[in-house]
């Protein structure tokens, strides 16, 4: 894990790097599933960069979260859309930041309610310290150490470009 650089890296360049990491594995005809909202934007970029003909899947894990008892239902739930048959497919789950691993766990559970995929891999732009579950990324561009209380947020700017923002709790 490298400490946080003084200026945050270019998220669009990182999307291209992530596409380069995935490209050698396209012979398995994987389908992309982006986790709202950051992962969905990245999956959209990957679809273009990798020239994939198929629509991407979009997943909102609100109905599968493990903190419902403490936090209740998220006020803005988006519909999950899986436009392909997941049965026996190789899936690549896409997220912006891998942190505790709980979102990934919830997303995997949700995908299994659509069928039994052949495999699920995980692609993220950033992997930060603080795992609470045995989850690891298959493809990752940026290992970064953050202070506790800081969070890394991917935002879509007015010009449509993706950019990182650092937020303090």
């Amino acid at each position, binding site marked *: 894990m490298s400490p946080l650089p003084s200026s945050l890296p270019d998220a669009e360049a990182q999307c291209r790097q992530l596409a380069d990491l995935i490209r050698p594995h396209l012979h398995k005809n994987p389908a992309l599933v982006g986790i709202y909202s950051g992962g969905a934007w990245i999956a959209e970029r990957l679809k273009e960069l990798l020239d994939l003909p198929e629509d991407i899947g979009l997943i909102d894990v609100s109905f599968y979260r493990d903190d419902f008892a403490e936090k209740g239902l998220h006020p803005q739930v988006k519909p999950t*859309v899986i436009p392909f048959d997941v049965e026996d497919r190789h899936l690549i789950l896409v997220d912006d930041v891998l942190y505790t691993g709980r979102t990934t766990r919830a997303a995997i559970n949700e995908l299994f309610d659509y069928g039994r995929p052949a495999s699920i891999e995980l692609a993220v732009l950033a992997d930060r310290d603080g795992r609470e579950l045995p989850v690891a990324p298959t493809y990752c561009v940026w290992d970064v150490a953050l202070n506790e209380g800081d969070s890394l947020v991917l935002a879509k700017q007015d010009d449509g470009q993706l950019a990182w923002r650092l937020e303090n709790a």
Partner: protein
Amino acid sequence: MHNPQLNKDGELTHLLSVEGLPQRILTQILDTAESFMEVSARDVKKVPLLRGKSVFNLFFENSTRTRTTFEIAAKRLSADVINLDINKSSASKGETLLDTIDNLVAMHANLFVVRHASSGAPYLIAEHLQRIGRDDVHVVNAGDGRHAHPTQGLLDMYTIRHYKKDFTQLRVAIVGDILHSRVARSDIHALTTLGVPEVRAIGPETLLPKHLDKLGVHVFHDMNEGLKDVDVIIMLRLQNERMTGALLPSAGEYFRHYGLTPQKLALASPDAIVMHPGPMNRGVEIHSAVADGSQAVILPQVTFGIAVRMAVMSIVAGN
């Protein structure tokens, strides 16, 4: 004024009535229901949100459809559902409503779905739960007396939004026995809160409540005038007991004046939708050609109702 439906953070913790709920909460319920529509279309029609929770269906008054859709909704949220047939239970042995509730809370109930012939019964339960310090137990009103039927009102709003997209340009007509209808009352409050500019009430004088105009509703006694250019028609069920109550001459007479026929429907906007909360009386308030016609959205209403009830239960159970 204290609203017993909201917690101290202004979040929905019971659903007792549409009246008094801000637009943001109505919109949150409709948005969440949209996500649940997708769950109902899957092979595995279930999410783990209410796993381990117990939902008690307390129906002091009969209603197969509403009870069934609440039961399906709770099961799709992975809750355990217990249906209490109150006529056969302790209530007939003299137990009070609140004693029944205390016993069910002692059985670790998490959510009560309540249908009661007396207006205000769900309020009474919600206030009792607050008094005994059980803010972790929630109440959803499934129809109380003539007062409110908020999940029906919300599923009607979901249906209108689904077909018409925007509330702020609509003319909506509610037709029939508005005086005795808790559905009509919930619809009027919801439509007004969501910004519908023109709500019309159409019916004979004996079946319209007084002071409807104070709610901003335009009153019509003539169907031909009232249906002109409307975008949405909500038909209400004519309850048979009204006929014997001397409020109406006969079913045939009612149908002639207030039954929705293809000819009367033609007065509305060409893309108007026809709604009905069910069960329908064909030939009394609605002609079969309309009920089965291309403008009727009566069966989609039933499907939307499950998603709306899933949304309501998961929102209140989380707050």
